[in-house]
């Protein structure tokens, strides 16, 4: 253990002792989520979204396995099998709406979780691996969500699949063959639907596996905290259980209130009306947009309207879209400021709140809007800032910024008084 003061697991029963000598599951839980895991005492509510995302992943897996009991991955009957779930299966509507809205809530949690990492510098040493694994989880989640959206085989499913796989077509020379390989045909059809179903079922378990590594990596240095100052001793931490289990617990209740309000009273608010029309390869909906959690990336994709010498705009858009996410993989090495928390970085804070956040919001709005002015121009400006923020502002900022004085320790920040220099 990296914390010498962590409480030690002591089996309380004879059976517990017996198990501990053979398969120490109890010890594992105790040391990772229980009293044996010292956690900074000053975490704010932004630290709640990791466990929340985990909860929604569980909800997705449970409801998804159930839906798969009734869903039929065949282009002829997929749409009707979903309606069968909605109309005839006992509580089927509840399970399907939980799954549909659960995806959105998973992404809400994940975005706030990522945003917290960006602001508080949770990607910096010694937590680079946690961050990298997190980006992998996010990429897998996007792939899973995209393929899941294809399964109902409505108009948006079909045209979403067509447009997204069409992105691969932009790759020079091998684009077309890759697209055909992905689809198992020339346009989305039964082959594509079946493989998307298979992978949609598989990937969440891969995500769960990467999450285990993500948490494993987290337990080496322990959690970051709002000051960004490393834990110095026992006085800086509290045991994860009961302190953070209680905090996570009530926050989960709060999140579930929002989730169920959505599920039971406005279940289709985040969906598209067109997806209640069965897929029709001969007629495109007037306005194709992905689900809201893809909007910022979709806006970047569409922002490229001009060729760059011999590079066509379409390829540029695809490159930019992928780069926009891939840049996160380099973030720990782009931002070299030794100070983690944005609270103590006066300039970074301004760029974050007045640059990056509004830029992502604008990209989101533009991505969901039709491809017309002024949205295209706005998304071009926002995309420019997006790339500038990660690739130009952050690397240069760490050189010129003068950080605010850091507290000597977490405890000092909490108590609000400088500590007497200890004996």
């Amino acid at each position: 253990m990296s914390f010498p003061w962590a409480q030690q697991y002591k089996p309380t029963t004879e059976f517990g002792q017996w198990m501990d000598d053979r398969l120490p599951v109890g010890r594992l839980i105790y040391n990772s989520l229980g009293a044996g895991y010292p956690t900074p005492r000053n975490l704010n509510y932004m630290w709640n979204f990791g466990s929340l995302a985990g909860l929604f992943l569980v909800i997705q897996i449970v409801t998804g396995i159930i839906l798969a009991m009734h869903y039929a991955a065949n282009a002829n009957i997929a749409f009707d099998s979903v309606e069968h779930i909605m109309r005839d299966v006992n509580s089927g509507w509840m399970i399907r709406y939980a799954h549909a809205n659960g995806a959105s809530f998973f992404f809400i949690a994940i975005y706030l979780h990522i945003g917290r990492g960006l602001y508080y510098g949770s990607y910096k040493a010694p937590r680079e691996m946690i961050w990298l694994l997190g980006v992998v989880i996010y990429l897998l989640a996007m792939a899973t969500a995209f393929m899941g959206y294809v399964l109902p085989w409505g108009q948006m499913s079909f045209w979403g699949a067509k447009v997204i796989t069409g992105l691969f077509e932009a790759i020079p020379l091998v684009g077309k063959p890759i697209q055909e390989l992905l689809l198992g045909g020339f346009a989305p059809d039964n082959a594509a639907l079946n493989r998307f179903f298979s992978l949609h079922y598989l990937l969440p378990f891969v995500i769960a596996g990467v999450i285990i590594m993500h948490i494993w990596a987290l337990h080496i240095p322990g959690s970051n905290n709002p000051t960004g100052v490393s834990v110095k001793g026992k006085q800086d931490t509290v045991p994860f259980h009961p302190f953070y289990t209680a905090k996570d617990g009530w926050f989960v209740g709060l999140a579930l209130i929002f989730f169920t309000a959505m599920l039971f009273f406005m279940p289709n608010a985040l969906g598209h009306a067109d997806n209640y029309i069965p897929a029709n390869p001969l007629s495109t909906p007037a306005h194709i947009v992905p689900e809201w959690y893809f909007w910022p990336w979709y806006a970047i994709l569409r922002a490229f309207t001009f060729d760059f010498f011999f590079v066509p705009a379409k390829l540029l858009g695809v490159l930019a879209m992928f780069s926009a996410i891939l840049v996160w993989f380099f973030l720990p090495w782009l931002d070299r400021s030794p100070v983690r928390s944005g609270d103590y970085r006066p300039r970074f804070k301004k760029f974050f709140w007045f640059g990056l956040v509004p830029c992502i919001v604008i990209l989101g709005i533009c991505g969901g809007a039709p491809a017309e002015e002024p949205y295209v121009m706005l998304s071009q400006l926002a995309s420019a800032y997006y790339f500038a923020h990660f690739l130009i502002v952050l690397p240069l900022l760490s050189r010129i910024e003068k950080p605010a004085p850091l507290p000597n320790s977490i405890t000092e920040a909490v108590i609000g008084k400088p500590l007497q220099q200890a004996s």
Partner: protein
Amino acid sequence: MVRFFGILIGLFFAGMMVYSFGRGAVEYVSNPPVKAVEYQFHEKPKEVSFASDGPFGKFDNQQLQRGFQVYKEVCAACHGLRLVAFRNLSDLGYSEDEVKAIAANWPIETPDIDPNTGEASTRPSIPADKFPKPFANNVAAAAANNNAIPPDLSLITKARGGGAPYIYSLLTGYAEVPAKLPEANRPGSGLHYNPYFANLNIAMAPPITADGQVTYSDETEATLSQMAEDVSAFLIWTAEPSLIKQKQTGWAVLAFLLIATILAFLSYKSIWADVKSEKKKKDA
């Protein structure tokens, strides 16, 4: 090294974006985009409320039955309801025998196979059957309807952005062609002007044309807007038969979660009380 290349890539992408923005902006100013004609004449769905609206809404079964009657007498000849089964009609308050009679007497029979010859044939429907489709397939539907396929109505209120108010508006929205409408946007042969329809010209002829077109059995006056409202309400039900159950379940779940969350919050407060009180003590 990472930062060096990062800055180069960043400059490239940001530069491309600013360049694109510049060219787009010049284009926008010098050659401002013209709103399509559809936008000038298109109208938003009318404000109309239904008994099932809102978190406490309930279906008005009388209205749903009237709406079903309108569907049966006006819409059913062209528009299917393929995801709804006759047995579902018992939700509207019909008895088992009434449902059986409705199914058996439905003007379109359910396709089947002749048990003796194996040829395709039809038979009267039973409650377990879905509403039979008015056309065997899309080709037949298009051929019979001037190349426009009448959409299935099972999910129509969920499959159109405007929902039930859109259906209501469409049914009551047929109008004279405005004099200012450009020639290119005027309805061609077999089309009808309707400002609520996306491209203004809809293939469906006005289905409800006169008051009293349907004779209601419950004394409600069958005005044009009443019929349109009733059938729209009916189509809310066909699209989401469990709508009311969803809301009722929702309230129970929310009430439970609220209490559970308050308890969990108090529990959290009590567990943290000592850590927090230490902070206060220090502050004092």
